[in-house]
């Protein structure tokens, strides 16, 4: 086998010699973008994500954690994974400081994944903040951080996502431009539109394959 550099250079040389750069590509404008007001964006995102079997709740920004506690009791989660230093970490800790009957035990994601991988695969719910929402397609956008790592929204069977209504954009394109994504991308950026699903057997739609079986979305407004 020839060396790495040679392979690379040969491929690139063939591509350079292809004459493709001489082609002219006509301008093709994109179709008009969606343009909704604040309320309509919230409504559209909620409707689209509900259609994808997301459990959407519109909650008050100030006492949203009360609704979270209600849900936790209702659904009977045993343990809830959270990021103590994430944007909603202290909120959750405060809420869990009193009136704890029937609430799941809080599990903090503090060390590297290797240290608690086995346990991680046993936890039944995880909660994260999200960076933004996309109204057009219905999706939340996550840029996982060291405070709210990637696996929190993937491994536990229930993912609770907390979205601020003011961060909902019309479209993915609008968000990428407004937030200047091209200037620097995180390790991992995610769009999530519902619980994991498959239709691989006879197109029968089944929710909960390898990712979360349930997605709970709290929209704070």
């Amino acid at each position: 086998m020839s060396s790495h550099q040679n392979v690379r250079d040969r491929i690139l040389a063939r591509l350079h010699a292809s004459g493709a750069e001489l082609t002219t590509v006509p301008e093709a404008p994109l179709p008009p973008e969606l343009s909704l007001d604040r309320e309509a964006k919230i409504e559209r995102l909620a409707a689209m994500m509900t259609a994808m079997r997301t459990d959407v709740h519109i909650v008050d920004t100030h006492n949203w954690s009360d609704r979270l506690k209600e849900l936790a009791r209702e659904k009977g989660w045993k343990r809830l994974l959270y990021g103590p230093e994430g944007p909603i970490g202290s909120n959750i800790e405060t809420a869990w400081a009193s009136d704890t009957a029937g609430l799941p035990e809080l599990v903090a994601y503090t060390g590297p994944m290797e240290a608690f991988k086995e346990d991680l695969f046993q936890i039944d719910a995880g909660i994260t903040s999200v960076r933004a929402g996309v109204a057009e397609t219905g999706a939340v956008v996550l840029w996982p951080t060291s405070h709210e790592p990637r696996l929190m929204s993937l491994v536990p069977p229930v993912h609770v996502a907390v979205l601020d209504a003011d961060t909902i954009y019309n479209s993915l394109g609008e968000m990428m431009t407004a937030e200047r994504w091209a200037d620097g991308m995180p390790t991992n950026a995610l769009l999530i539109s519902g619980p994991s699903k498959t239709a691989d057997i006879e197109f029968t739609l089944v929710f909960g394959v390898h990712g979360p079986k349930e997605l709970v979305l709290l929209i704070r407004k």
Partner: protein
Amino acid sequence: MGNKTTFDFDANIDGALKDDQLRKNLRKAMDILVDKRRAVFPDTAYLEQLRSAGNAIKRRALKQLPRLLEQLEANCTKNGIQVHWAEDTAQANGIVLEILRRHDARDIVKGKSMVSEEMHLNHFLEANDIEAIETDLGEFIIQLNHETPSHIIVPAIHKNKDEVAAIFHDKIPDTPYTENVEELTAIARRVLRKRFAAAKVGLSGVNFAIAETGTLLLVENEGNGRMCTTVPEVHVAVMGLEKVVEKLSDVPPLLRLLTGSATGQMITTYVNMITAPRRSGEKDGPKEVHLVILDNGRSRMLADPEFRQTLLCIRCGTCLNHCPVYVRIGGHAYGHVYPGPIGKILTPQMEGLDQAGVLATASSLCGACGEVCPVRIPIPDLIRRLRNESYDQDGSAVVKGGGYKKNLAETLVWKGWSLANRSPLLNGIGTRLAGKAGKRMPKVGPLKKWTRVRTSPQVARTSLHERARNEGVKDE
């Protein structure tokens, strides 16, 4: 139906056409996919504009392909992703194996990747004592049954739930027989979660690689792709070199076209954008990310202005769903990794016309594939071009194995035809003779094969010329 090692297209087609269960499964599935696509693009004007934009974005990427690949490599490297180049599938397999060996890995969890199918990676790894574990539900089902995908997007679509139930019951220890799809899905989840947690290396394909930021974008619904790219210590992504796009702003329209065309979805459950391995202080994600960029004939396709359009493809599979041939014979009959219309133009260019040119004959040229293609690849035109190159009457073929069908008898027939149509005398004699033959077309050689399933053409007793003369129309 298992996968045959030798390729006999006629026999495959015969077999598939006689398989009632297969045809029922396919018809139902393809009708659903066609309806779902139509429902997600209700506004025709919007869709046509979006298709034109998708075409322009991909053409702009191909126009700058070497520069974009260099930029992608530079940005990935800067972000900590290790970039590898492979001329062919053997080199790509070697690169993956070397990474697995270095990490002492005995198995690898795989997200759905057509390039890894093109590499026959599972087979190669098996020969090297490494277990490749397919984790997409459809791929998992067919891997248990030692089959290959029959569709680019829904690999097990040729199976119904009874067949899946039997496969799970037979192949997964201690699994009771169930035809309940939710239970079947739960079984796969249970089996594979253990594998995700244990594997050292995960593999994925790439839907779009963004040169501007060095980002690899993957779409999926099940979460297995995220598992494969997040839980193991090492993530290896494999991509064909045509997957690169210039910038992030190219992504939203392409995503819309891809998910809408593939499964009729506004968006998949997950859009996973990977730009770096785990950075200092981060608590999860792979510590190493590798990107393998595969050529395997693609750079050759770029050199021809017409064939280059094959590289616009975003692998949505909608041309399969709309193809009257695919819907009747299914993916396995094509005997190669990429079935359906896109396979008919891609495979002969990769493997040579002498090896796979016959695929281009399996088309009624109805044009449906070209009409629905989200990036406007003129698939029927390319099929015709490949058919012409198979005979290569004028010696201009650019595809490997061109002229493999050229033969003296046919060359003489065409020469004669051309001559007869240029000489009024020969033309007159010819049409009179054909008129005399009338219904009695000789059923020999290629004519016999042609008329086996078709009504023989009947030549009129008198030619148009004669009738015009008899009617008193003046000959120019």
